[in-house]
């Protein structure tokens, strides 16, 4: 499998990453080198192998379904690049 400029454009869109037109072809080349290298994984027969879903052999811990944090609005806003009062702002999304 190899990627072309069109695929890079599509993947960049999915990743919400602006990739300038002139970078699409070089990026396709870089990605293809990595993808060609990982192709060797195709050599293995993995038909009866379960995928690893948890590296630690333990049941996921559960916690009580209670509120244990909160009332930190000021803290949450402290690093916002463009906040108005306690609101995060974005360009207009509805007319």
């Amino acid at each position: 499998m190899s990627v072309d400029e069109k695929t890079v454009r599509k993947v960049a869109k999915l990743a919400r990453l602006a990739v300038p037109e002139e970078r699409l072809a070089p990026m396709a080349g870089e990605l293809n080198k990595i993808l060609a290298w990982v192709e060797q994984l195709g050599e293995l027969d993995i038909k009866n192998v379960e995928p690893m879903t948890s590296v630690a052999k333990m049941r996921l811990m559960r916690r009580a379904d209670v509120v244990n944090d909160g009332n930190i609005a000021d803290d949450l806003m402290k690093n916002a690049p463009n906040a108005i009062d306690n609101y995060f702002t974005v360009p207009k999304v509805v007319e």
Partner: protein
Amino acid sequence: MSDLATLTLAGARDALRRKKISSRELTTSFIKEVEGARGLNAFVTETPELALDMATRADARLSRGEAGILEGVPLGIKDLFCTKGVKTTAGSKILGNFVPTYESTVTRQMFDAGAVMLGKLNMDEFAMGSSNETSAWGPVISPWRRKGSNTPLVPGGSSGGSAAAVSARLCLGATGTDTGGSIRQPAAVAGITGIKPTYGRCSRWGIVAFASSLDQAGPMAHTVRDCAIMLQAMSGHDPKDSTSAPIAVPDFEAAIGKGVKGMRVGIPKEYRLDGMPSEIEALWAQGIAWMKDAGAEVIDVSLPHTKYALPAYYIVAPAEASSNLARYDGVRYGLRVNGDDVIDLYEKSRAAGFGREVQRRILIGTYVLSAGYYDAYYLRAQKIRTLIARDFEQAFEKCDMLLTPTSPSPAFGIGEKTDDPISMYLNDVFTVTVNLAGLPGISVPAGVNNEGLPLGLQLIGRAFDEATLFRAGQVIEDAAAFKARPDSWWK
């Protein structure tokens, strides 16, 4: 005043407790060292006032006889750990002005144990790299140089600032994180000791996430004992990290000195790579001889899927990274570049904030998770991960630990490998298997090559058996009697 050139963390701890020295004196000396070594670019943020304040409080506790495990000991913190009120950038422009309002669990525990923070340490951007060259704040220069040469070398990565700072004796120890080798590889090429504990041993809460099923924090320091002391303070169950293990933390330091007599050390034949430098080959043979001399039984074992670990890692890690890094959107925190609409704002902010290697990995990760490719790449890689973990399980039926080289080469020059991502990725060929299987691994300095550059040996243990690694690591440390030091050319 103790001699900073030979002082260890354990030595400082003991001197502080015996009131031979105060934390303020010690901290003041290290602050001067840090200021004098800015040419190495190891620290991205220095916190001298905070350090002195912490030292004063440590001295008060020491005088009351209330010393914690790390009481009064000056340390450096990798810039991946969120530190309350102190800028935390993860080596990225996208977090260039980020000041956490909370403390990571690991640093909280270390500070509760009395540690003094000298500052935050440089690293590859989002811990993605093996040379510290992807940092938005410029590369770290290794304190080490080839004999008779001024060529600047890399300190390894991604915990390159940590490795350089410890190695140049700017602090008594530093935190690192290890996703594919980012503690062990820099420790090896910088001539220090570093351990990646078992997945789940240290809480990941408050550590900027790269690949959540692989990331683990760990200590980097001068000696095996120093690492044992630091790991003691860093470890333990944390309800805030659902993957943190609810398992008691043993006394790691107590394991040291017990030797390896009667223990079985496995040598995985698949780690003998074609074209491996003879100096690495020789170092490994030396390590085997040391183990035998100490009374261990050395046996050959096979980890048949080793060669697939690195390519599997370069599917799993970017996939998880692409998901973890989705949070950097220019809205709630981090760099923002305004756009015509909200999508445009996201795309422009992320393009401006992430460096080249991070963007490459986000794109690879998004691609391997995208519709139509998930089974061929991600699911296949996760199945191969099962096979790699099984290889280790079978090997550990026959032996108590594995001995391998840490890194396939010594430190290389800055810029030598930046054009070819795959040749850079190969630096982690001996370390990455351990992350995929969630096991602990320690790197101990074991010798120098003919150019005077440090080389390390790695020990790999069973899950949650770091104690065996400290025992055996001490055997290597004693046998190697590694005394090489970089010339202090940066002063």
